[in-house]
């Protein structure tokens, strides 16, 4: 039956039971996410990090936590079933990056080229 299983998988419309996760996956994900959250709040409110480096540290922690969420909660893995989802995610990340950095860049440029305004 083990060999047949591969073929059964492909039958369209068949809902096979396919465990993608278990309680442990979610619990590990929760633990890591809580750690990253606490670290973010501690870093933001203390001088544990060199103060000018705090924004960078916060962004790194946020990216780490987003990674934890994607892997442990949304189950984006390296498996073949995830291939299309990962490609779509990569495209989404590209667009998000373009929208945010593009807006910030353009408006900063516009700001620095503004005529000095009289104080109202």
């Amino acid at each position, binding site marked *: 039956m083990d060999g047949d299983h591969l073929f059964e998988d492909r039958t369209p419309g068949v*809902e096979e039971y396919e465990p993608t*996760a278990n309680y442990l996956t979610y619990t590990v994900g929760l633990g890591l996410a809580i750690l990253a959250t606490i670290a973010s709040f501690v870093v933001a409110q203390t001088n544990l990090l060199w103060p000018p480096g705090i924004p960078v540290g916060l962004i790194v922690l946020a990216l780490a936590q987003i990674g934890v969420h994607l892997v442990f909660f949304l189950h984006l893995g390296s498996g073949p*079933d995830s291939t299309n989802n990962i490609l779509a995610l990569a495209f989404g990340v590209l667009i998000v990056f373009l*929208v945010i950095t593009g807006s910030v860049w353009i408006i900063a440029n516009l700001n620095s080229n503004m005529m000095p305004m009289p104080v109202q």
Partner: protein
Amino acid sequence: MTIAAIDRAPSVPTELVRGRGGGGPAPKRIVVAFGFWIFILSDMIMFSALFAAHAVLRGNTAGGPTGAELFNLRNVFIETMCLLLSSYTCGLGALSAERRQPARFLIFAAFTFVLGAAFLFIEATEFARMVEIGAGPSHSGFLSAFFTLVGMHGLHVTSGLIALVYLVAQVIAKGLRAPVLRRLLCWSLFWHALDIVWVGVFTLVYLMGAS
């Protein structure tokens, strides 16, 4: 990835490699989740526009209160934990549903709802307090962007809670059938995605705005 690399994969013939069209169409569950994933990514792109607007306008406080004066980080931390734990119970609920354990699913769904509602309650109280002291969305560019971004996330959480009630009603009325399970899968993707957006909100808006 070359053909040779696929060939080396143990015990799976090349023509059966999933995700590369091997062995026919993917199960409906995979296809539905992929479609919903595309929707979630388009939602993320909408949020990215709001994040960009906030990043541009964060300094334009019009002489009014800044983030450092307005934000209560203790409340933000409680909100974050509520949403994170509700994401966790949502995952456990989805797992119980997949394993056809309706009673357990209903318990986890109730936890998810209560934690999500607690998040919304804290957020609404914060908004009401800010409007009361004259720091409403019409006060400055910074506050307009703040209320739009955080409010949009709150609206998503609200619609998620309404959808959860609807889904629980379906589970009670129809049982854990395949179509209901697919809807639950999509809903849990949505809920986890909202938590990802919240990671961006509490980092970029609250923590960076308060320091």
